[in-house]
């Protein structure tokens, strides 16, 4: 029974944690511009993420090393500095995006500009990290994030043409606006396969003291959680394909997005959208702030745990305080949140090789994984992900200029 509860909580965490500002915005843009043609990108992202997350959890359960810890030990500190710096930059951008998402949700119901909400939102997120435990951050906010299932219910409520939706699961070449199509595909993959998620998951496995007995739970929660999470993002894409695409609406601002759910549920749709945006982005902001601190602490060998009082791991606590404070700046300065989202998703996609390549090496190193090294399937999938990651890294910036 305890295992079933653990699995259920793990899946719920995956579903609630999948959708955030980036995946919501990119899914809606893809549905509006290309109807169901980019569903395959979300599916591909969810499958890649499930494999990578499973490996991060297995690494921590078997070796008791977190991913940054293992990268530093296996490749040396000089190598580790590169992903450390790049990931901190990417996390700063994504964190600002998430704070912007919560601030926009508050703007929609208060009329007060999102710029003014950036500081109160960041202070609340920081205070919960300061006072709360890992369980609160991981499970509390993610369980609330189940409200995002409204996108799936909404899509089904509008009776989409299921055969056409299913056809969208197969990759295809664009019929128009090729640069924009591929730009959105890269953005969706960047939003889905965010490297910060593996760092967070791997640190969480150590925080929760996982061991070999958790491997099955790890596999099920990674597969089902990310799979169902991907379905939520597909729900948002299908809604945009049904509502925005026929009307010729392009998504150029977050303030168009409540229409996705008001079209399906009327006034309750507006309430559900605000709750989804605020909770999903708030949860993601907390996870990113913690991941930034995990990465620094594990890389430099500081004491770390979200379950310790801040005085016991002062440098760890200072790091999440610092990134939260810095991420306020772009939002308080009035940067366009949708543009920031698209840019941060492209940076996120481009940073993937820096994490995926070391992960593949480590997952085949018996000093870390003993008898639980990758099998041929996992190695094949990660090799394909790495190939995809290099393509994304090469094409993402030119596409940002030509198709963004």
């Amino acid at each position, binding site marked *: 029974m305890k295992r079933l509860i653990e699995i259920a909580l793990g899946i719920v965490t995956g579903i609630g944690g999948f959708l955030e500002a980036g995946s919501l915005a990119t899914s809606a843009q893809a549905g509006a511009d290309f109807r169901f043609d980019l569903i395959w990108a979300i599916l591909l992202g969810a499958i890649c993420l499930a494999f990578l997350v499973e490996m991060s959890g297995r690494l921590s359960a078997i070796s008791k090393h977190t991913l940054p810890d293992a990268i530093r030990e296996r490749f040396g500190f000089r190598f580790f500095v590169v992903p450390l710096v790049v990931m901190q930059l990417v996390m700063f951008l994504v964190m600002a995006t998430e704070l912007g998402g919560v601030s926009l949700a508050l703007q929609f119901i208060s*009329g007060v500009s999102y710029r003014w909400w950036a500081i109160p939102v960041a202070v609340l997120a920081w205070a919960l990290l300061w006072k709360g435990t890992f369980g609160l951050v991981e499970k509390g906010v993610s369980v609330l994030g189940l409200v995002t299932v409204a996108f799936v219910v909404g899509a089904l409520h509008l009776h989409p043409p299921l055969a056409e939706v299913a056809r969208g699961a197969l990759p295809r070449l664009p019929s128009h606006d090729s640069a924009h199509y591929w730009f959105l595909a890269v953005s969706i993959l960047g939003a889905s396969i965010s490297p910060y998620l593996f760092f967070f998951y791997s640190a969480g496995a150590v925080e929760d003291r996982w061991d070999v007995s958790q491997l099955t739970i790890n596999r099920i929660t990674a597969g089902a959680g990310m799979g169902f999470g991907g379905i939520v993002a597909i729900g948002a894409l299908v809604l945009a394909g049904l509502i925005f695409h026929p*009307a010729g609406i392009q998504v*150029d*601002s977050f*303030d168009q997005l409540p*229409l996705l759910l*008001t079209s399906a549920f009327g006034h309750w749709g507006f309430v559900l959208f605000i709750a989804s945006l605020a909770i999903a982005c708030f949860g993601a902001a907390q996870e990113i702030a913690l991941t930034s601190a995990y990465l620094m602490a594990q890389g430099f060998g500081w004491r770390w745990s979200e379950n310790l009082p801040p005085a016991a791991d002062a440098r760890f606590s200072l790091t999440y305080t610092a990134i939260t404070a810095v991420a306020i700046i772009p939002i308080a300065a009035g940067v366009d949140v949708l543009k920031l989202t698209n840019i941060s998703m492209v940076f996120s996609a481009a940073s993937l090789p820096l994490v995926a390549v070391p992960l593949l090496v480590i997952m085949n190193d018996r000093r870390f994984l003993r008898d639980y090294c990758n099998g041929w399937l996992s190695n094949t999938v990660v090799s394909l992900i790495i190939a995809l990651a290099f393509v994304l890294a090469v094409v993402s910036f030119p596409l940002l200029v030509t198709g963004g």
Partner: protein
Amino acid sequence: MVSAATSAGMIAAAWDSGAAPRIYASHALGRISSAIGQAGAAPAWSALPPASRAAITRELAALRGVTAQTDTAIDRHDHAQVAALRRDLAGHGHALAATPIDTAAQ
């Protein structure tokens, strides 16, 4: 900008049906009106021949005006006027889409 006209119409409809609150609708329409204003003043139009430039900027100005009026009508809770302005928004959207741009004359 045709997308902006349709978005504005959809937001007004959501307010009219009670699905979206006034604060949200007003803010979103204000943003769209401002975006249309910026589009109307974009330097890119200067590359067009004068006749095309005049037609485009005239339509954009009209669309901005109707969007702003819709915002005001929502502030006054005037459902009848909002319904009428929604038709105007759709009309201006179609007119904008149909505006001929004489690129050959450049």
